């Protein structure tokens, strides 16, 4: 579920939605989402002073599921 949420948000922010790739790593207590975007789009998902990345993480932590399992978003470059 979180994967779809992040995918939807990120695709709406970048210039190359087709290059968006999210790998899900399920752990026992947390889920890690590894996000890859086109090189030129990295700035768009991080934002000035990390504002956009922070907003996405805030939204992730407000998810209905997040109450039971932590979701961590990693942006790969």
């Amino acid at each position: 579920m979180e994967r779809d949420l992040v995918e939807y948000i990120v695709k709406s922010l970048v210039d190359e939605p087709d290059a968006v790739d999210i790998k899900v790593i399920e752990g026992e207590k947390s889920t890690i989402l590894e996000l890859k975007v086109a090189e030129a789009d990295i700035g768009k998902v991080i934002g000035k002073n990390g504002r956009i990345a922070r907003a996405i993480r805030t939204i992730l932590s407000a998810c209905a599921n997040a109450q039971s399992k932590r979701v961590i978003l990693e942006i790969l470059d």
Partner: protein
Amino acid sequence: MIYEFEGKTEREAIEMAAAELGLETDEFDVEIVESQAGGLFKKGKVKIRVHVRDSAGSPGTMAGESDSAADLDREAESEVPDQPERREKAAPDKPLLPNDEFERKMIEWTAEVVTRMGYPAKVTVLFREEKKLGLKIETENTAMVIGKKGKNIDALQLLANVYAGNLGRDDLKIILDSENYRVRREESLVRIAYESAEQVRRTGRSILLEPMNPFERRIIHTTLNDIVDIETKSEGEGLYKQVRVTFRGRK
């Protein structure tokens, strides 16, 4: 105004109330209506009734004070910025229909994101101004969508604005609201401003308010702008600066 909330513990109920009403926990009075302690196999239940002080800009601390400062406060109050001329607002039971493809896309984006968060939501146009588009989020989980001090709805709004920019509408500011949170938050900030001014005047010591975003700080600054013996200044770096309220003395 009186609201009722229920939680597993008193604290949980109060926190829910704070998030839902967009207030700080010390800004309202709590009355415990019903309290069942949780047992080993049984969940506890606490029902509270929340009394929100009338916040029409006349904080109780000012009442009865008849010196010039109080008059100034009243003057400042009447200087609430005028309503922009071209403004279309949805009636409580009659939302505005989307005007164009852009509005339809913004509505779809917002509803889709909130629904994917796990909170099925309906989004409609709340108001239109020359440079603003207000969208209303309706969901059963308003408290979670708003978040503590509006953290979640502000994050959603930031992303909504980036998306709007990608659609070529940099000129427009998107405002997301749910259950009138924005108005309630603004009222609560005006009250915080007046109460801190009063405290600063009484004690002569400055107060540093909690970190706020630019919009929230602006409300504090403009609320206290016309009070001659009080000065406000932002301190710190980044998006979330803190406002310091200082006593300047009577002149």
